[in-house]
């Protein structure tokens, strides 16, 4: 892999609540290089969205973040808010799941894209309203808003879901960030529109060489666009590797379970979907052992270790950077 633009080391996020400390992210590492796409996969409560918010420094005041978030080698964790402000939306930008709520209903979309530009062009002439507006229209046009100059004056509610997501992408890209974090960018969209938006993301990534962190629960989308994948479960990394590692050589029982549980549109259905029994643990109730152990079908083969000892990410022999956090040495399917 080329030198990564974004490197996250040993990221921990703990929320201080009335009920005590709740760990949401419990030590994860990932990296993404320019022009590449890293997908973070997991179900609700896995900590994937919290991780992205932590990278952006967008967590509320009751969240404690430790670890390193290196953007071009510069650590963002603990950066004074004023310094962090200059990074956000400039070097690293965010695309949300629900574009309707992500946009401010009271301002025109052109104004909102222009604002993102003005916030990072100081008081210089570049930041004149006219120039910002010009940039906004250019970006709206680039993301495929038809008749962008006129539509820039429209308000978010006057757009369709897909067009709104294009606006959000335009807003994120107007300062040509090095890293784009897309948190479930197509989950709220219809499938034909999802295809349009994913193609758009791939196009802009190719054009600008943006590093993309895609947070998703949809393994189909992940298979299509990701280079590398991080599977998260209960705030920890379950498996990490290339997209082929995950889909062809999944090593963690949870990853296998996810793949088996996903119905497919392209092949005749299996009589029954594979299921993962039970449901994910609620944050804060994590035991000393493997967080997946209560739902795992292989735990009997390993025995006590799954309950007493927390598995760490370990490289799979002979599979390059492919790592899984599982005591079961062999691939589950061969076991």
């Amino acid at each position: 892999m080329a030198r990564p633009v974004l490197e996250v080391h040993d990221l921990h996020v703990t929320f201080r609540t009335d009920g005590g400390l709740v760990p949401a992210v419990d030590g994860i590492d990932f990296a993404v290089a320019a022009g590449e796409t890293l997908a973070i996969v997991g179900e609700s409560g896995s900590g994937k969205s919290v991780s992205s918010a932590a990278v952006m420094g967008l967590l509320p005041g009751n969240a404690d973040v430790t670890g390193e978030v290196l953007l071009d080698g510069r650590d963002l964790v603990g950066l004074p808010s004023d310094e962090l402000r200059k990074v956000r939306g400039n070097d690293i930008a965010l695309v949300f799941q629900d574009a309707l709520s992500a946009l401010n209903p009271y301002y025109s979309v052109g104004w909102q894209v222009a604002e993102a530009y003005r916030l990072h062009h100081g008081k210089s002439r570049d930041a004149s309203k006219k120039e910002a507006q010009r940039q906004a229209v250019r970006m709206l046009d680039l993301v495929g808003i038809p008749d962008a100059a006129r539509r820039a004056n429209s308000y978010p509610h006057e757009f369709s879901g897909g067009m709104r997501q294009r606006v959000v992408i335009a807003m994120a890209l107007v300062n040509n960030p090095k890293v784009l974090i897309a948190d479930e960018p197509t989950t709220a969209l219809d499938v034909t529109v999802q295809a349009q938006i994913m193609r758009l993301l791939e196009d802009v990534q190719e054009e600008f060489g943006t590093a993309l962190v895609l947070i998703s629960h949809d393994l189909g989308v992940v298979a299509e666009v990701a280079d590398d994948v991080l599977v998260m479960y209960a705030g920890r990394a379950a498996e990490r590797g290339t997209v082929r590692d995950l889909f062809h050589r999944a090593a963690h029982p949870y990853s296998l379970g996810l793949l088996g549980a996903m119905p497919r549109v392209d092949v005749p259905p299996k009589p029954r979907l594979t299921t993962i029994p039970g449901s994910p643990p609620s944050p804060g109730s994590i035991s000393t052992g493997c967080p997946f152990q209560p739902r795992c079908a292989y735990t009997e083969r390993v025995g006590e270790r799954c309950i007493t000892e927390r598995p760490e990410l370990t490289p799979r022999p002979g599979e390059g950077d492919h790592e899984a956090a599982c005591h079961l040495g062999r691939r589950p399917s061969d076991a």
Partner: protein
Amino acid sequence: MPDELLHLENIKKYFGLRGGVPWRQAQAVKAVDDVSFVVRKGETVGLVGESGSGKSTLARVATRLLDPTAGRVEIGGVDVTKVSGRKLRPVRRKVQMVFQDPQASLNPRQSVGTILTTPFRAQGIRPTKIQLVELLEQVGLSAEHLDRYPHEFSGGQRQRIGIARALSVQPELLVCDEPVSALDVSIQAQVLNLLADLRDELGLSYVLVAHDLAVVRQVASRIAVMYLGTIVEEGPAAEVYDHPAHPYTRALLSAVPVPEPGAVRDRIVLTGDVPTPISPPSGCPFRTRCYKAEDICSTKRLVLEAVAGSNEHKAACYLPEI
């Protein structure tokens, strides 16, 4: 036909939009525009389409939660289009609905026991505790859950409660509106398997309304594809999925991502958005986004016609793929 559980004939459902000014005509949103649809005993019919296609509205008309603007609703061979109020209860016994968001469709102030008792009461029955426990066990829950409240359950469990409630009056047909779209993948599979098990055990039939084509493929024996208030294609699931005849179905299927890295897919990316159901395009509703559209497509609204080589598989298209 005796084995027809549900028969919808030329259903139209328009929602009124008040005209702002007197000289502007009151506009109608044509949510469902002349749809006929049949569910036979033992079938699982998938009703697929994107948002605004009218699939949820059609499901609500089928369960008589909404009155159709025009058309006929027959349940178990009886015309129930005009039936209302108390007389609807025997109809409701046969057809029950499962909703998308179990959080919103379960009363947070009622215990599971109360939630499950209500449908019995509506039929004038006082259920025994054993009956309630049996219901819970049918959906993979147990007696200990009877006295708990909805917020104490996970999303998947709540959906199971919603299904148990629907099953309480021993319906023949369950109309499920996006039953798994709010759930995580691993939980989604559990609920889909449960629906399949219940079908086998109780001989249930389903109408499964969903936007996720993979989910529908997993359980449906027949599917109907809706676009802008009309059915553009219907037929046996395997035929429609493997040999879609309508260009819209083809585009829709090709847009679904497949969990197979590097899979070469012949994707048709549609341009633009779905037109407004207030003034749908003349002729074929899909023609404005269709990659095959020709002049003829704007002339006349098409009816579903059998696709070559099949009598069950029908499409409404001048230029079908097969």
